[in-house]
């Protein structure tokens, strides 16, 4: 079933949905941006049509609605503990195809990795229904088509927003009652078929090339450019790393809570071990780790696709204007250089008696 809702009718439907769902969508936080008089668009609970920011990409990803930056896992008192209470209502999450694909990838890490299922992730994820926001093409930092995340059928409904209202294609019958009496129309969601920004990750299946790339001087550029602030990973649709912390209530060490808080592989100290040793002590090392993780390592482990979904938020949020797409291109150039050197070495070895 397809519907064409005016803004007022969309409000009515959202009101009805809000009775049974926590409706989450990109929302504007005026003047909360990094620079004076700039806004932030991030996921939050919405109540009405005008709350939803659809014209522009959110600064922060949809993952915040599923795995928030900070979350209490359990509370403890002496030798007893109690799990934190999860969300009571199901969540209707308005998200673009890239963000929906990102949840497929997050689920692999949280619940399909090493035979262990993350209870706190799964209990929320199981409550999430997607309302796919038809994407008008994003902005000049988007490259979903290159990453194969421009289309998705994984949603309960598809929605096309405009200033006047929204067109909805219902895919799940359970949602029919919320749209009862609303004007019907004919609407089929469209997908982004081309981005201005394109990227082709290099083939790193050759172990020799892969190892040589890790040592390539290209990463040194980031020692002076990257400030290791971690903006890229907080804004990343797929990053899942977190750290746990026990917070004690006052001076009684027997009472408190265990939280998990997002962590960033880009921030110094992320990989610090006992004895203060760090595996990746420079910004260049950390950048290499992240880029290879997103454009090689994940796929090498799980097979299906690269980890990066091409939402471009890392580019959008980087205060130093480091583009991950340009970095991948530099990586491709480095791979070519390495391969040429290898074939020269082999040819050289060939003439040896």
């Amino acid at each position, binding site marked *: 079933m397809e519907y064409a809702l005016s803004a007022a009718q969309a409000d009515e439907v959202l009101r009805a949905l809000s009775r049974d769902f926590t409706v989450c969508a990109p929302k504007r936080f005026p003047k909360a941006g*990094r620079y*004076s*008089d700039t806004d932030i668009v991030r996921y939050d609970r919405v109540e009405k049509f005008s709350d939803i920011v659809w014209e522009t990409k959110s600064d922060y990803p949809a993952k915040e609605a599923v795995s928030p*930056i900070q979350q209490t896992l359990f509370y403890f008192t002496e030798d007893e503990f109690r799990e934190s209470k999860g969300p009571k209502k199901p969540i209707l999450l308005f998200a673009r195809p890239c963000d929906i694909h990102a949840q497929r990838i997050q689920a692999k890490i949280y619940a399909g990795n090493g035979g262990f299922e993350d209870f706190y992730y799964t209990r929320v994820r199981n409550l999430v229904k997607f309302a796919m926001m038809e994407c008008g093409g994003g902005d000049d930092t988007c490259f979903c088509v290159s990453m194969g995340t421009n289309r998705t059928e994984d949603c309960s409904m598809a929605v096309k927003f405009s200033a006047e209202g929204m067109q909805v294609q219902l895919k799940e019958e359970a949602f029919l009652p919320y749209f009862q009496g609303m004007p019907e129309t004919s609407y089929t969601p469209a997908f982004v078929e081309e981005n201005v920004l394109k990227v082709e990750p290099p083939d790193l299946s050759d172990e020799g090339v892969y190892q040589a790339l890790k040592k390539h001087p290209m990463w040194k550029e980031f020692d002076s450019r990257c400030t290791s*602030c971690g*903006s890229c990973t907080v804004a990343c649709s797929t990053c899942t790393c977190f750290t746990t*912390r026990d917070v004690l209530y006052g001076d009684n060490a027997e009472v408190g809570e265990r939280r998990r808080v*997002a962590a960033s592989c880009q*921030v110094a100290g992320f990989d610090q071990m006992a004895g203060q040793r760090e595996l990746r002590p420079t910004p260049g090392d950390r950048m290499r780790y992240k880029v290879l993780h997103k454009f090689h390592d994940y796929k090498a482990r799980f097979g299906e696709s690269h980890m990066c979904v091409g939402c471009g938020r890392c580019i959008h949020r980087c205060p130093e204007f480091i583009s991950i797409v340009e970095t991948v291109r530099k990586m491709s150039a480095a791979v070519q250089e390495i391969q040429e050197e290898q074939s020269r070495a082999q040819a050289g070895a060939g003439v040896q008696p």
Partner: protein
Amino acid sequence: MNQDINIKKARTNCFRQSKVPGEFMLQMRVPGGFLDAAYLSVIEHIAKTWGDGNFHFGTRQTFDITGIPYGNIPAVNAYLEQYIREVDEQLCRVDLDTVSQEPQPWDPEGGYPTIGARNITACIGNYHCICANCNTFELARKIEPIIFPSHYHIKINIAGCPNDCNKAHLCDFGIIGVAKMTYHPERCIGCGACVRACEKGSTRVLSLNENTGKIEKDACCCIGCGECVRACPASAWTRQETKFYRVILGGRTGRQTPRTGKMFLNWATEEVVLSALRNWQKFSAWVMDYKPEYLHGGHLIDRAGYKKFKELILEGVALNPECLVAEDIFWQETEYRSNFNVKPMSLHHTAGPQ
């Protein structure tokens, strides 16, 4: 050169005497130092038609056109009408028919009615700058009609943030854009970027609590620069929507008693800054007993004493609850000669009704 020229009258008209006899330099006001680039052709036209073809960026962000022969002044003034109307009357809503709060119809052919309140300077502010906390030239345009045209001198500099590139510390009434921050602990990843930013570039008021992984702040010593907001990767620090200002009072350069200004107001809202400035002319008039002299604002504060200044400038001003006011200010002057203020009684100045 044999001309009978009243150079004081020319100066009041914003034409500065040159070392070349009979030549003058026009100083065109640019409140906040920001204008449509189309006005550059106006500058070019004046310079090429009536001046020596050059111009100088005035130290108070005026367009200064050099080498204008005295005889050309009437023609320049007639041409200036459109510029003055567009920039001061329309952009800043200045009432050109009131000088020093007294009715005095403006002669549209006569150029600037007075040089008194000097051009308000500003850094580029948050129109462009990643550090700024406010739109500096929009504030300048709001202040312009309060202080101009007036024979009472005041130099106002506006800086978008406490870095004070525009030297609010070196003018009569310096205004610095500051922000009050909100901390959102639920978004904080405990990376310490704000702590390092504050330590490196500000007043070291932040620390990371190792037990909670969250930030603690010595709010009292925060200068409101917003570096923590800029540094945060997760928007855990945000600027509050209300804009606040710090007012630095009584700074000056000069041959006698140069000094850095001191904090007069902290965390004042725009309305508080504007209402205080609305009392400026009244204060100046009181000090000089309604007889304007060519004397800058800081000296008037010296004559009246800070406490009298405070009383008159804050008269009827409804301070916002966050606003702090200096109870007293003790400036430290550069002593070109020691005991500068010790002199015969006959050389002492007075303030108030004579």
